[in-house]
């Protein structure tokens, strides 16, 4: 069927999230997708939902510094972890990585871009000077349908060794 169905009564539980350094408390179905909670309840719509099944990477957020697909994460299991969204990364102005994306023109429609920036930020924090092969491997979960891959690669590599 094309209309998703979820049966059964929902018993809300209290979930406390730490998003971009701020505490949010919800009475919520713990199985709600983190992506929906970020977008619809907190209003952080910079996190995009492209496929809803972890195949495109548009919904990437950092969970304790690691990029994860927030469309696959139940909000209950994100409780107690440090969540960073694209809005959090952008709070103090453009990061060198964001500047590099602009300079390299590593975007077109831009729908995947927040996820690309989040994933690349996770990579550069874990590995400040990745090789080209490591960049390609790390970014392989983030689809860019406009096909900006050469420029995305170039933008990230230009930050390799920096503090992106």
């Amino acid at each position: 069927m094309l209309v998703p169905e979820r049966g059964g009564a929902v018993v809300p539980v209290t979930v406390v999230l730490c998003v971009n350094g701020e505490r949010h408390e919800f009475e919520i179905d713990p199985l709600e997708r983190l992506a929906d909670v970020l977008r619809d309840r907190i209003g952080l719509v910079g996190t995009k939902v492209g496929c809803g099944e972890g195949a495109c990477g548009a919904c990437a957020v950092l969970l304790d510094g690691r990029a994860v697909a927030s469309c696959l994460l139940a909000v209950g299991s994100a409780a107690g972890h440090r969540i960073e969204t694209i809005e959090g990364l952008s709070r103090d102005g453009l990061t060198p990585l964001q500047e590099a994306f602009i300079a390299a023109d590593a975007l077109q429609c831009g729908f995947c871009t927040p996820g690309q920036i989040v994933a690349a930020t996770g990579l550069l924090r874990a590995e400040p000077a990745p090789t080209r092969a490591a960049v390609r491997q790390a970014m392989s979960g983030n689809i860019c349908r406009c096909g900006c891959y050469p420029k995305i690669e170039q933008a990230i590599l230009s930050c390799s060794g920096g503090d992106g």
Partner: protein
Amino acid sequence: MSTTRTRTPLVRGRVGELMPRRDAEPKVTGAFAYSSDLEAEGMLFAVTVRSPHPHARIAAIDTAAAVATAGVHAVLTHADVPGRKTVGMHRADQPVLVVDVVRYQGEPVVIVAADDLETARRAAVLVVVTYEVLEPVADPERGEVLRDVRIRHGDQSLGADVVVSGSYEVGMQDQAFLGPESGLAIPDGDGGVDLHVATQWLHLDQEQICAALDLPPAKVRVHLAGVGGAFGGREDVSMQIHACLLALRTGRPVKMVYTREESFFGHVHRHPAWMRYEHGATPEGDLVYVRAEILLDGGAYASSSPAVVSNAACFAAGPYRVQRATIDARVVMTNNPPCGAMRGFGAVQVAVAHEAQMDLLAAALGIDPVDLRVRNALKTGDRMITGQVIDGPAPVRELLEGLRAMPLPLERGSLRADLRELPGGVANTTHGEGVRRGVGYAIGFKNMGFAEGFDDYSTARVRVSLVNGEPLVEVHTAACEVGQGLVTVLEQIARTELGFEHVVVLPADTTVGSAGSSSASRQTWMTGGAVKAACEAVRERLHELAADRSVEETVEHHHRPTFPLDPETGQGDAQVALCFAAHRAVCDVDTDLGLVRVVEIATTQDVGRIMNPAQCEGQIQGGIAQGLGLALMEEIKTENGLVRNPNFTDYLIPTILDMPPVRLAISETPHPDAPYGLNGVGEPPTIASTPAIAAALRAATGRPVTRVPVRPDDLI
């Protein structure tokens, strides 16, 4: 505290200069508002009930339980459509909501609006539709012909000494734009509505909404929201009318966002194609004739199929001089998913065939494949197979020779290569013993703009005023920024023409005249031309500019007229202009596993004039990525009318690991009819990239490779 102002001696950001795209900063920070990100006070959420059957008669629709659900505000069927019950780009044959017969799987039957998404979804499940299931027409050979295009060019009795023939197939590709169909409709309290939506053509949406709602244009204002990619898939309406219907019925703003699965059912796809070709040539390698039978499956509704099949016919022979052409192209209607516009628009499918044929012919003649293409290359002054004399640039020979001169990537090193360098990457289970490298060339062309007599135009309003003594230029059009970089180029044009630094491109909406569609590689030419002309008109009146007096001009830009194709012979000056690109693919194939690694794509493309260097490169690289997808992985699989893979797990899109380095040489042969001499850029990269990869795979394996996407079985 004092402020200082530095004046740059030269205004930067003119045509041709490096300039970051204007919307880049909000896009990298997540602040850019896409159509799925919008909200309004008191808004409802809407969902669609879709048919699970590709062909069925609806016996009854029972909405009582859904209506009775707490939190549900409206449950609408075809009976609630106040105006015309059907929509369509070329003919209004597609129901807004199914009236009696379902013609494809996923067709919208009922729409539901509720306080929240979960309530709407639960209510949708309670809608009971009683279907009498009918046998679908799934075989295009049995489909009803929607349009056939015959081309009879030259002496039809001409034969040739050297003849090659082949049959080719192209699978159904999806645009798979990442931002799903979505929008927000806000009733104005006075019987009208404002729709904020991701689209390619605001005024065509408006026209179709007005017809269905039985409202005048002044009551339906369409505003462009952020567009998460388009590629042709947003030319037809999807949720536009549904959201407006619900908003007017409930008096509340209504938001509608498709899921990815719905998106596969929510827009048209690239036509799958079956093509039989025969080429004849002299022993020296001069093309004598091309015969082709082309069958496109248009699916359930017309969409833009009549124009797609025309393109497939007109460009069927490729960019070559041919004495005789005999082309029979038809598009049929079935109960398969509706097909319509996708980047390349008919030229993509036939390029797979005509370029494979050129390679076959080269082999039969013992001539180098590039030499054969150069020998027969179309040039300015030649006639196309439609009889139209090419009076604009046609640098086919130059592109091919430029491409051939580009250096090849290094040969593969030792057999114990890094696994990631092997076809299949870490999934490869051999040590690369069976890896063979192949190189393939292809070239393709298509038209800029619409064809066959369509009076195409765009409108621009340009206003200059003084703000604190400084000139401010405002550019207003209805042209859709879909990621191609249009807003940036329009800003560059206004700055170039008026010489003022401060240029603002206003949000696109229907309060200014139509800009036509962001498709057919036409928008920079057409709306760029309109903005240029409006700036010129403003410039003539700049002496009137004063602190309390602005200067404003609205100008329509039309391209030169085109003419219909003769229905018997397919002859006619149907095209505005032509754009060309050539590709060379270098591929490694693991011949034990049938896995492919594209090592490099090299390309030469003539763009007339580079308006924005980085954006121009981006269009070319991106088009190649989509061409690579069609060559190797992207296909909507159907089985008796049912889509088997409506998700990104089973519909594969190239990732960064699939994307090879692109070696790029852009040339600029000014087009005499175009503003700044520019030409269409967006589509040519998707045309020949696919057949170039197929050619490389043939070279590597010796297998025929007559179908894309290529499957491992085809290579072993």
